[in-house]
């Protein structure tokens, strides 16, 4: 049991922190970037590619670096610290993760190679209107005619769905189960309507009308297991990103309490406020512990263990993130309500991450299903 980064991991953290800090350490820059489509900085995306960050999780044969979950988590934390808008989570971890898990060697080399090089943005079109947080697709269906496949239905919201060069789309298979398909951004019968999300991100309604698609991996294969695991890994990485954002929020709040004067003294003279900051710290440290643990479970655990770890860390981040975010705004007062100041936007981003992949109540419901099956939780017994 060891929670420390080795030298290479520290070097990676410092390098990523340097890059994104230079880009978005000044919050105003982030604000300007997310005003314009595609909602992130294409040049920054290229820099991340040059640094090897976009290929970090993928094997060397697929054009990547072959790094482990801890390294991916480090990147997510650093992106979270500045709420950098580049679609690392949506494109690399989620969409790329599914291609890496389910694609043929040729698909992996082609799609992931271009992603790692910064030449292509991927999106995973999975959510469907009227339902949430499952691994199965229902309203988007796949049809087969000879050797060719088409997809029909609506996916929404799809993160970065309008900008993506290639969409990875989940669909209900004719023979049952859920498959995944590659759809080119310019495919026939594909229409995309993009819009900004409240945290400066981008999402889209993606409509498919007998749109030609290439099955990911072997045609007709039920991929719901792979989709579930990739979503679980994404939950854990989203938790890393949230942790970074929470760290910035606590730092900003303590700085503010030390500098802002009211009634002739700085706010840290009021114990009612400093105690609330202490409780924010407690939430943050507990979250930190669970995030590090869940990240380590990805490489050491079975899919069931990863699913449980994802649910547990998502629950903690949901509760802790809301606590830290809400308190950060309250302790700042009115300034945190303005779009010019960063704190409110961090809270908005935490809120988005909380709802993209399953919020705290959802996780409690999931974990409740098995709570009678074991006596006590033991993270050291594996």
């Amino acid at each position, binding site marked *: *049991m*060891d*929670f*420390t*980064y080795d030298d290479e*991991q520290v070097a990676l953290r410092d390098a990523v922190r340097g890059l994104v800090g230079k880009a978005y350490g000044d919050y105003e820059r982030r604000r300007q970037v997310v005003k314009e489509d595609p909602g992130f900085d294409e040049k920054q995306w290229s820099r991340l590619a040059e640094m090897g960050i976009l290929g970090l999780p993928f094997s060397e044969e697929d054009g990547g670096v072959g790094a482990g979950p*801890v390294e991916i988590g480090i990147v997510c934390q650093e992106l979270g610290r500045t709420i950098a808008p580049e679609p690392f989570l949506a494109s690399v971890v989620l969409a790329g993760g599914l291609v890496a898990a389910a694609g043929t060697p040729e698909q992996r080399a082609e799609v992931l190679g271009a992603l790692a090089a910064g030449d292509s943005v991927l999106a995973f079109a999975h959510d469907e209107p009227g339902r949430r947080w499952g691994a199965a697709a229902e309203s988007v269906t796949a049809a087969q005619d000879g050797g060719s496949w088409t997809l029909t239905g609506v996916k929404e919201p799809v993160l970065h769905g309008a900008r993506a060069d290639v969409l990875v789309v989940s669909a209900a298979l004719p023979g049952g189960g859920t498959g995944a398909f590659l759809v080119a951004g310019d495919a026939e019968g594909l229409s995309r309507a993009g819009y900004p999300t409240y945290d400066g991100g981008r999402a889209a309604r993606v409509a498919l009308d007998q749109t030609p698609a290439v099955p990911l991996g072997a045609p007709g294969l039920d991929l719901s297991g792979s989709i579930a695991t990739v979503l679980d890994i994404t939950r854990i990485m989203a938790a890393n990103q949230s942790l970074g954002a929470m760290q910035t929020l*606590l730092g900003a709040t*303590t700085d503010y*309490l*030390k500098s802002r004067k009211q009634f002739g003294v700085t706010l*840290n003279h009021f*114990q009612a406020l*400093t*105690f609330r*900051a*202490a*409780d924010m*710290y*407690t939430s943050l*440290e*507990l*979250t*930190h*512990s*669970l995030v*590090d*643990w869940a*990240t*380590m*479970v990805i490489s*050491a655990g079975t899919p069931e263990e990863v699913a449980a770890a994802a649910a*547990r860390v998502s*629950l*903690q981040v949901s*509760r802790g993130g809301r606590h830290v975010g809400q308190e950060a705004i309250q302790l700042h007062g009115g300034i945190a309500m303005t779009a010019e100041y960063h704190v409110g936007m961090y809270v908005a981003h935490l809120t988005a991450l909380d709802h993209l992949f399953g919020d705290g109540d959802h996780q*409690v*419901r999931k*974990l*409740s299903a098995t*709570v*009678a099956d074991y*006596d*006590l*939780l033991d*993270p*050291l017994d*594996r």
Partner: protein
Amino acid sequence: MQLELSEDDQEFRAQMREFFTTEVSEEIRRTVIEGRELTHDQIVEAQRTLNAAGLAVPHWPEEYGGRGWSELRRHLWHEEMQRAGVPTPLAFNASMIGPVIAQFGTEEQKQEYLPKTANLDIWWSQGFSEPDAGSDLASLRTTAVRDGDHWVVNGQKTWTTLGQYGDWIFTLVRTDPEVKKQAGISMLLIDMTSPGLEVRPIELIDGGHEVNEVWFTDVRVPAANLVGELNGGWTIAKFLLGNERVGVAPVGATKRILARAKDLAKDTSDGEGGTLLDDPLVRARIVELENELLALELTALRVVAHSSDGEPHPASSVLKLKGTELQQAVSELMVDLAGPASVASGAGDDSDLPDWARTVTPTYLNLRKASIYGGSNEIQRQIISRTILGL
């Protein structure tokens, strides 16, 4: 980063588990697991069993019975002990006065007291708090005035836990009233059979007798019983209270009680054809508590895994605060599971209500103390906001 324990530490943990679950009296462990009160003799017996195996004071200097373990091993020892329902060595002896005598005592004091302290041949009481000196310990008023080869002690201590069993009491006394309040304090060891020393019980909200007042009226204490330097008591108190925070989050015990809550919920009807564990709200509460305990346990592991470089890990301040909150929350769940049976704390042997349901409310009420003692949780928030956040 590494998820698993090293093989050596895994083996160590297995050895501890084996020892605690096979070598310590099963009746004592059952008393702990079922939440009943331990007798004086059971506490003594448990500690002597541990001491005979070298497991009572592993954190002491090695020449006095310590084992030179890593912080991680001490943590595993402590957690396995709690998980097995083994009473932890009496804190006043093992965590408080023992390390103090080993650090500050004279050679004679070490020879005289340390073996008896480890083996619980002497039952120590703590004489720190006074009616006007709780979290503000330096305001204490009990005086010690030098008279030849003796100190003459007058005053009153309070909240002396299990003082009714105490053989000796370690006290902080004011030896110089003229200087600023932290500077005039000394530590004295006092035989509780001394003339003029009187222990008076305090009845608590749980109906039990756990704490006491200790009154000193012209109690004569040999000068040789001074620990450390004259007027150096504040340094010793800070050393002792620093030790007190180690292992202060009772994760292992709270996990065990939560696991038991699940078992009991499974065996209790919800009155509508199912069991309490079928109730989605009960399940949800258990899930939330389990998750918070998991986060706390992992935080404790983060802290112990990092403490080798001497500096305390900042997250250690979280352990007391959150550990006691969760301990209290689990005790609250137990009361809620017991429902109407929880009022029957005074029922006798002819009661049809289960034992557990009759003990949960006194335990719940008793545990309100956890966020008050050892530096109240408000003091912990003060430590976090001042020393970690710099507020």
